[in-house]
């Protein structure tokens, strides 16, 4: 989800001369024989909101904790703003963390919680009071100074945790599953608030989450992690539209994956024959793969067009069309999900927005045509 300053940032990681603000250089963390983080290298640029996305156990939290100084890498370096911070303890890093449980000190009130970090730095009292007041105003908690954490709601506690970390003006703010504890409505609201806050203060955010919706909304770039490795890093649209592997394609959003073999492999198009699909897929761009290799075509559910009547010709006869029977329908209000069973047995997931209140009613057991544009499939080789 891009916003104002993004145009400039958007080019930072494509510019070979841009200096990384946070550099993770071949970092590995092993616990005995188990590699939680396996030779990860990553460059994060100033002012980004970078999201580490992955399932539980993929190593994203361990990586975050190494950035915060709570774990030491087994090998590799971590540089922040050019300085080697590997092995520096948390209380000496210009990095602050917002914990998943917020970790507000229960015996201190809001004001004391927020002021804690400044006190440790020896900031003069007058300045502390001023900065705390400003920050509380920014997170819209003015007037709550004397309250104790147990007297606050979940959302309020989160804002205190945020204020407490940001008041120190850290170079990087680490966020551990920031929206996990909030209910759906509050989550959406907070997502936009976080982005606004980040934009205003210009702090570099590193967010760890397992929720891909959260990652897609917040991030300027996402790093998808699996088994301790970063399998793909890129903007949300890059990740979604151009996944580099089956794993990424399946992890972010839903997808239909058809296994097949290359029938034609030209620079501007490929044709894949898929037994699963029972048809051929014509893709209007080239890929790099060995001849006769097994490949997978990934097609997003919203890019499949479903109709009762045969679709108009897609340009190349016979490609990108199949027939099937509707097996299941889930009505979600704004859109509907259809599970269509093909003659080969494969079930294809199709989503269609409910644009009309009296739509052409497609019901269970209905025979339908599924078709898609030649530019829609993404071909992955692993």
């Amino acid at each position, binding site marked *: 989800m891009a916003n104002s300053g993004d145009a400039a940032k958007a080019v930072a990681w494509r510019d070979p001369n841009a200096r990384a603000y946070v550099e993770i250089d071949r970092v590995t963390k092993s616990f005995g024989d188990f590699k939680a983080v396996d030779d990860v290298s990553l460059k994060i640029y100033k002012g980004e909101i970078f999201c580490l996305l992955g399932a539980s156990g993929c190593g994203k939290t361990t990586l975050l904790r190494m950035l915060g*100084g709570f774990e*030491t890498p087994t090998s590799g370096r971590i540089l922040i703003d050019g*300085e*080697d*911070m*590997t*092995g*520096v*303890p948390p209380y*000496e890093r210009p990095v602050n963390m917002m914990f998943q449980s917020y970790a507000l000190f229960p015996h201190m009130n809001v004001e004391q919680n927020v002021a804690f970090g400044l006190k440790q730095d020896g900031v003069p009292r007058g300045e502390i009071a001023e900065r705390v007041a400003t920050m509380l105003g920014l997170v819209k908690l003015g007037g709550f100074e004397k309250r104790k954490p147990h007297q606050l709601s979940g959302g309020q506690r989160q804002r205190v945790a945020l204020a407490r970390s940001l008041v120190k003006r850290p170079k990087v703010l680490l966020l551990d599953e920031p929206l996990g504890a909030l209910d759906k409505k509050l989550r959406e609201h907070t997502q936009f608030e976080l982005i606004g806050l980040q934009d205003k203060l210009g702090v570099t955010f590193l967010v760890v989450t397992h929720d891909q919706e959260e990652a897609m909304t917040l991030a300027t770039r996402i790093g998808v992690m699996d088994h301790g490795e970063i399998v793909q890093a890129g903007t949300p649209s890059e990740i979604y539209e151009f996944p580099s592997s089956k794993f990424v394609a399946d992890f972010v959003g839903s997808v239909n994956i058809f296994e097949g073999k290359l029938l034609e492999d030209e620079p501007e198009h490929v044709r894949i024959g898929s037994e699963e699909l029972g048809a051929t897929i014509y893709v209007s761009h080239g890929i790099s793969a060995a001849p006769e290799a097994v490949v997978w075509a990934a097609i997003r559910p919203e890019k499949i067009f479903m109709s009762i009547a045969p679709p108009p010709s897609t340009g190349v006869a016979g490609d990108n069309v199949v027939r099937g029977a509707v097996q299941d329908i889930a009505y979600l209000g704004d859109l509907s999900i259809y599970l269509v069973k093909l003659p080969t047995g494969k079930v294809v997931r199709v989503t269609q927005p409910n644009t009309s209140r009296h739509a052409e009613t497609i019901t269970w057991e209905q025979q339908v045509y599924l078709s898609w544009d030649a530019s829609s499939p993404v071909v992955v080789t692993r």
Partner: protein
Amino acid sequence: MRPPPPLSKVGISGRGLVVALPYLWLLLFFVVPFVIVLKISFSDVDLAIPPYKPLLEWVGQNSLAIKLNLNNYAFLFTDALYVHAFLNSVKVAFISTVLCLLIGYPIAYGIARATPTTRNLLLLLVVLPFWTSLLLRVYAWIGLLKANGVINNVLLALGVIHEPLNMLYTPFAMYVGIVYSYLPFLILPLYANLEKMDWQLLEAAEDLGCRPWQAFYKITLPLSRNGILAGSMLVFIPAVGEFVIPALLGGPNALMIGRVLWDEFFSNRAWPVASAVAILLLILLVPFMMWYQSVQARESASAR
């Protein structure tokens, strides 16, 4: 820019300092004494202060002799009194533990199943006697059990008996005293264990056709095993070496090893023999103490 110190280095020296003080204290005042007891158990009685002969002796100019006197141990193993005292102590402790379980388990269970407000009140009632002196509570039983004590007076007044029952200074009185004093030590760990139980398991069992008593036997009891063991150890181990209760309530027939140790030490001034008794008692109890430790470790591991 200064080179950052490796976290581990800072961490370990700090940690060492934290635990050093209690570690050294316990090493000096808890462990070393046992070594000394062991040493003295091998020495002779001496009419001196302190009343034992040293272990190391200069023999001639340059030789040091260690005299290990095993007579004390031989004495203990052969004299019927001591053998009987050891065996009796174990027997009494064991029976008391079983009695505590029979009385204490329903109480702990009842408290664990009560509503939160009632539960807190009941816990308070269990804990209150624990905070009042053991000595005084044992004393209370003297008043209750003696010939012209409360129980006899009540029973005589009601006409249930015609002569006072001889209850005080009998093994019976000792059992009552031990069970009474150690009951909270069984109830509390058992309650702590039962409190963590998922009562829906019982409902699931009953839903699947189990009768209430069967459900208790097959589900509650096995799951509370750690609590039972912990509570039992907390009763059994100290009860073996119990002194106060046998001294005040038990008669001359209630021979408990704790009392024997006390008498050897204070009445007979036989320090080496007393030390040997202590060592044997320790050897007897160490396996149980290790069992207790392993039960505790299991409990905290499953809680994590």
